[in-house]
């Protein structure tokens, strides 16, 4: 892209990137992760409340667990819908955005690494998720799967529900309830670390790329340079 400052004006094009389904997934997922992490942490480390109550007078720990289980179901089914969209979503939502399937993907990862960590002036080709973000969401999806199977695995003992009983095989693989529980706890910290990086990089790219990265997850629109749009036609890997 030869830049001729004297003649150049950036033309931005409005692109509808994130469908309602994926935006809903994002926010329901964000809420679920927040609620599950907080309630989960409380279940693991209940605060020492000074109280003169008798057991029959309170149920806060039971309610905390109940909320945790409710959101576990929400988290699960929300994810199931997202998996469906991985195969039947628009071109910015399909699995090709998350699983490297050609050279272009790796080339773009390198571009993003240069922009994000080597602070070179980036020239981003992607319109939807950038390739590095795509990889990070792949890890997130794996983390979500692990969290779902460990969580429902230890829940299976308490429930005869059909969905929960599908996870009866989990606990023996992890070597008992105690070990499964420990992994469930460790994976929670994976979400905490992911969230920190994710939120920071979204703000960073919003600023560096100037394409409305933050607002895209509310309204679905991004603003992409027309030049990039042309380039995208020849280099796009996520069609």
């Amino acid at each position, binding site marked *: 892209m030869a830049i001729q400052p004297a003649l150049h004006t950036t033309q931005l094009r409005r692109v509808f990137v994130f469908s309602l389904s994926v935006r809903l997934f994002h926010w329901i997922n964000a809420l679920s992760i927040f609620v599950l992490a907080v309630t989960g942490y409380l279940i693991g480390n209940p605060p020492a409340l000074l109280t003169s*109550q008798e057991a029959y007078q309170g149920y806060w720990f039971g309610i905390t667990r109940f909320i945790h289980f409710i959101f576990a179901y929400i988290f699960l089914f929300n994810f199931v819908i997202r998996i469906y969209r991985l195969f039947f979503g628009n071109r910015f939502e399909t699995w090709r955005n998350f699983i490297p399937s050609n050279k272009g993907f790796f080339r773009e990862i390198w571009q993003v690494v240069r922009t994000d960590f080597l602070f070179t002036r980036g020239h981003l080709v992607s319109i939807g998720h950038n390739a590095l973000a795509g990889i990070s969401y792949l890890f997130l999806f794996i983390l979500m799967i692990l969290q779902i199977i460990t969580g429902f695995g230890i829940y299976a003992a308490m429930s005869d529900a059909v969905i929960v009983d599908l996870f009866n095989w989990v606990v023996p693989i992890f070597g*008992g309830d105690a070990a499964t529980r420990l992994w469930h706890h460790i994976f929670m910290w994976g979400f905490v670390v992911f969230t920190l990086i994710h939120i920071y990089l979204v703000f960073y790219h919003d600023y560096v790329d100037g394409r409305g990265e933050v607002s895209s997850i509310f309204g679905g629109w991004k603003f992409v340079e027309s030049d990039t749009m042309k380039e995208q036609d020849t280099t796009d890997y996520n069609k």
Partner: protein
Amino acid sequence: MMNIEVKTKKSRSVYDDAVEKGFNRRDFMKFCTTMAAFMGLSASGVTAVAKALEEKSRPAVIWMHFQECTCCSESFIRSSHPMVADLLLDNISLNYTETLQAPSGHAAEKSLHETMENHFGEYILLVEGSVPTGDMASCCCIGGKTAEQILNEVAEGAAAIVAWGSCASNGCVQAAKPNPTQATPIHKVIKNKTIIKVPGCPPIGEVMAGVIVHMLTFERLPELDSTGRPKAFYSRRVHDTCYRRPNYDAGLFVETFDDPNAKKGYCLYKVGCRGPVTYNACGVTRWNDGTSFPIQSGHGCIGCSEANYWDNGPFYSHLAEFPGFGIESNADKIGLAAAGITAAGLTAHAVITNIRKRKIIKEGVAEGKYGLEPKENESQEKTE
């Protein structure tokens, strides 16, 4: 001599022996009722148990001891109802058991081999203890054979195999890291047969008796869960049947063993109780004739019937140590450190970005990319 005894007793039932021993019909029926209740049978099940013990001839039993402390045998002979010990241990055709048998040396070996031959495909094999394997197989030898060899030989003709206790079921303390003798639970040695696991260190005596009576009564294995434990005794967690459970749901926890909460009998979850992750019948059956169980005595469950419970320590902390990060580490400390390092990295990144900010904007404006005014005359309608 052993041979003759085995043959003459073959046709006798448990009830015949009970009468001979001096138990009356009432004692016998009480025993049958107790057992039926432990096994979770309905009222009609009592009749089935009584009928079986009256009519069926007792099976031959071989009780092997390998790497173990004999606490399973101790628990068994102390089970609450005297008939359990008297009949099922003294009088059942217990043809071989190192700890309690009268013969020793060649006589004992002879008894074992005669039972294996005369009752091939019929005898019940009870195994107490784990089996050392590989280079360490010689750590447990009896009569010049390794435990592994003996087990393989004896298991071949067994109608049913029961793994008594945590040693035989999952290795217990001798299989804890670093497992110096390569101690192996028996289901990993004998792979072609179903093994009934009765874990616990020791298992509850009534549970052990219940498993045997079930096999006598119904002549088949009790219903097992996915890991091979009888569902009647191991389908629920200690937590689910714990009398302190309401305190858990109300969020009332013992913080330290010497606080007022401990005195009030609050939940022991925060001082490391493994009840929520342990499958056993302690909360229902309890110990020593229903007297008590660890939680009732004010001490958390240590999860002795769970696999690897020695490696999931420390016992007095709710969250296990995280392997590879030192003694004081746990998942929360490591997670917090990871989050802290991430936050520090992001902060540094943000600082660098902001230092560069001025330059980026300046360049962008120079290129005509940013700002209100395009550099050239492309926006003619602009006022000025």
